[in-house]
């Protein structure tokens, strides 16, 4: 799968409270959540993001709460992929479970600036900064998670497993 979009650049510890504040947890409609995505950190994000855009952040992206509304809001906002130096573990699991592609790649984070056009080959983990021509290689997913992602998430995975039993 090839993803392409403009980079939104953020710092360390982007927590799930700023990704989607608890005051919106009474909403489960993805499109509604997307309207408030990152509003406490970057009020310009939700209205400025375009389908395919990519979030690029430093360490510990998605720290804090287990709310799955966080990756759901990011995905519904049109973001095609999140690239970070590292992810908090519950966010990592939730993102894969709901089918939001995420890549860990410290070098790419160093080499991508706000607004750069980025191209990601998800299967190969190849990240290209089209603005500078620099190419980066992300950590590949463990095999078990690749299977989950290929199927489209945990719901599909469980359905498939049930079909076999």
């Amino acid at each position, binding site marked *: 799968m090839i993803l392409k979009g403009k980079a939104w650049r953020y710092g*360390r510890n982007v927590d799930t*409270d700023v990704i989607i504040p608890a005051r919106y947890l009474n909403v*489960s409609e993805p499109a509604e959540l997307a309207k408030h995505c990152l509003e406490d950190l970057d009020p310009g994000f939700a209205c400025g993001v375009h389908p395919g855009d990519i979030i690029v952040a430093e360490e510990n992206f998605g720290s804090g709460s287990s*709310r799955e509304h966080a990756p759901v809001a990011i995905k519904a906002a049109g973001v095609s992929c999140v690239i970070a130096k590292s992810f908090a573990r*519950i966010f990592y699991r939730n993102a894969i479970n709901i089918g939001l592609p995420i890549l860990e790649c410290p070098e790419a984070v160093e080499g991508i600036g706000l607004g750069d056009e980025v191209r990601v080959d998800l299967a190969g983990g190849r990240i290209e900064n089209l603005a500078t021509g620099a190419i980066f290689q992300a950590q590949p997913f463990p095999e078990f998670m690749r299977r989950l992602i290929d199927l489209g998430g*945990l*719901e599909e995975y*469980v359905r498939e497993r*049930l079909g076999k039993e």
Partner: protein
Amino acid sequence: MGKTISEKILSAHSGVDARAGQIVVAQLDFMMGQDGTSPLAIEAFREMGASRVSDPAKVAMVIDHSAPSPLEGVSRLHALMREFAREQGITFYDIGQGVCHCLIPERGHLSPGDLMVGADSHTCTYGAVNVFATGVGSTDLAAAMMTGKLWFKVPQTIRIILDGALPEGVCSKDLALWLAGKLTADGATYMAIEYEGEAIDEMSVEARFTLSNMAVEMGAKAGLMEADAKALQWMREHGARTLERVESDPDASFVETLEYRVHEVEPMVAKPHTVDNVAPVGELEGIRIDQGVIGTCTNGRVEDLEIAAGILRGRRVNPDVRLVVAPASQRVLLEGMDRGIIRDLVEAGAALVTPGCGPCVGTHNGVPGDGENVISTANRNFKGRMGNPNAFIYLASPATVAASVIEGSITDPRRYLSP
């Protein structure tokens, strides 16, 4: 090669010789969701084509994040949870029963050596009673309810040895903040922590819950302790099914062993907007406080309220400050009433709210105003956490919060120690 607590519990529940780094599918002893995460889990459960939970005795849902409901939209989600609980015959704790992390160990749902997941990041709290407990999202909870199982990556373990005794006026919360400052907000990401040492031995089980609760603030998957006689006694009194403890082997492999002497730990405060942004209280004295909060899954138990009441008894909350007290459960509230602790707090000027998470998570019950400073016994001070991104949250022990709301500014609680 020996095994860590995590490797032993995950081996016992997966039927394989589980070692750090391996992915295993393990049988769960218990699973839990709260009102922020359960509605999505119920939706996912139905999407997966499930009709019945695999074992209703192993599932609980708790309404604590918005209890009682402050909004019509929330009421709809609560109704969805009540209907699901009735239909499935699972354990259900409605408004006023308390915060999930106080309730689940308190009501006999856990035994030492158990494996459990909760759709809440602070599920790691139960590590204090020797349970491998970790936070997951809603889709994971749905799969767990349906199959009774979940996949886990067996974590590596950091061992933290805490030698010596905490000085007077210093709480386990101060130690948790001090450790967050040392390890940083992602210092234990993907890993389990095992806490041990004299400082742990000396702590009450309630104080241990505070420490394990904040393991996730360093990114950890679990914050485990061995079950000593004190923990086993506590579990017996709170209805555990079995009392078989799980210990790490002497030759277990730890990714790192950190040893600290805790006699130098001071009352600590985490400054806005990250939990690892800590300083000794002395460096922050004098910062104006507009609101105090005592409660939450970190510090809302009887011992915490008692520490605060010990300082506030016979004194008054500063007229320029509001103090919100949210006991962590109905049992805590009742015991606090029986022992006069609640009376002391209310007479000092505290506003008592329904047991629940509201003030910490910003759903209701004390959303701060623009530019206001809050000092809270909670575990997170992220921007907007309490419902207003223009407010500033400082985290501290119940003692430091109590002293600070009297003075109207951040205050070293040791000034209020009885002679």
